């Protein structure tokens, strides 16, 4: 934290993220758009991305999406499935929309079938279907899967499987053998646009972004060390006695009391039980008290 009275300087870190990973690229593009217009709530206040995991359902190759992280407080406004269709083998794949030319790829309709796949049975629960009317080979396609995503949320189905029925055609990944997994950059993904009704509640930022406190006991020692390294360094130069342990304990206690009340209460009860009950108020002998009063 850098406090002070100085006016805000113009220096800001700008993100020019050009990742070959389409999920990263899409999310960073959205971040830039939402940062420019944070007040606009047309697309909701939350966008979640879900990368596909190739799987088999009903004996067919499917793409599975784990939507379990979407909480009930998030009202799904829109969900879109993005998938790459049959890479042209002659040309290297590039994350770019191909130009449509008269002699280029021809549109082919594609049918998407959605299933809930977490019931443990070999057959998934149908969640709906969709058809992508205009479909061009070798490019990223987008399909509206809002109804299926909402249905999955309504029936509390965390796993959604998508089967791409293209007849003789095949979606990138399905045309490969079972052992050959498509590369990460070619896997389909889902973007879920939602309005999180809980985001206006107090501490919403900590609820989603605070993971385990700044200095968790017994875990992430490397992380906590890296977090305090700068402070230690400054103190060494200033020839001050580092108060790392004290501040760590203090901050840890603060975080735990604020965000993990149940755990700490139990932990403390156990601790106090082991070490003997200690009074809440400090007590001193009469001589010390007299000295203090005189002072």
């Amino acid at each position, binding site marked *: *934290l*850098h*406090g*002070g*009275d*100085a*006016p*805000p300087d113009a220096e*800001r*870190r700008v*993100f020019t993220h050009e990742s070959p990973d389409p*999920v*990263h690229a899409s*999310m*960073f593009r*959205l*971040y830039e758009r*939402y*940062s420019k217009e*944070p*007040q606009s*709530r047309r697309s909701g*206040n*939350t*966008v*979640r*991305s*879900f*990368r596909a995991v190739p799987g088999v359902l009903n004996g067919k190759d499917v793409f599975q999406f*784990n939507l*379990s*992280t979407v909480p009930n407080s998030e009202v799904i406004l829109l969900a879109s499935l993005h998938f790459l269709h049959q890479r042209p083998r002659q040309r290297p794949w590039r994350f770019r929309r191909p130009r449509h030319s008269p002699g280029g790829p021809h549109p082919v309709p594609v049918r998407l079938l959605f299933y809930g796949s977490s019931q443990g049975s070999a057959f998934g629960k149908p969640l709906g279907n969709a058809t992508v009317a205009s479909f061009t080979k070798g490019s990223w396609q987008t399909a509206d899967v809002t109804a299926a995503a909402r249905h999955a949320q309504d029936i509390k189905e965390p796993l959604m499987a998508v089967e791409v029925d293209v007849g003789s055609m095949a979606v990138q990944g399905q045309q490969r053998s079972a052992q050959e997994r498509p590369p990460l950059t070619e896997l389909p993904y889902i973007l879920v646009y939602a309005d*999180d009704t809980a*985001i*206006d509640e107090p501490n*919403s*930022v900590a609820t*989603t*972004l*605070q*993971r385990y*406190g*700044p*200095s968790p006991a017994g875990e992430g020692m490397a*992380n*906590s060390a890296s*977090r305090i390294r700068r402070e230690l360094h400054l103190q060494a130069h200033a020839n001050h006695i580092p108060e790392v342990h004290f501040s760590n304990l203090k901050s840890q206690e603060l975080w735990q009391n604020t965000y993990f009340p149940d755990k700490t209460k139990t932990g403390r009860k156990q601790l106090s039980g082991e070490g003997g009950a200690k009074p809440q108020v400090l007590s001193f002998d009469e001589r010390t008290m007299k000295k203090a009063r005189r002072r």
Partner: protein
Amino acid sequence: QWSEPRVCSRRYLRVDFADIGWSEWVLAPKSFDAYYCAGTCGFPIPKVARPSNHATIQSIVRAVGIVPGIPEPCCVPDKTSPLSVLFLDPDRNMVLKVYPGMAVETCAC
């Protein structure tokens, strides 16, 4: 100069997510201008401190001193702005959220 009381106003504060231990999962922004409010709201509160009517009354009551224990009105954020944050959820999926009230726009008594 810090020992002298200064009227309630917005002060500069940049928060770096690395400093609060969130940089491991917060992808963007790395830091942002959060600002903070500080300063006194003592009687008489100047207009620049944008006192609410209640703050004005409380300040007068305190100055008169009839009711004991009434503190000075507080200097608090009056208007705030949201912040878009791109982060990884526990499943390592990228999530974008627009959090309200993340940066102070104006302060008031």
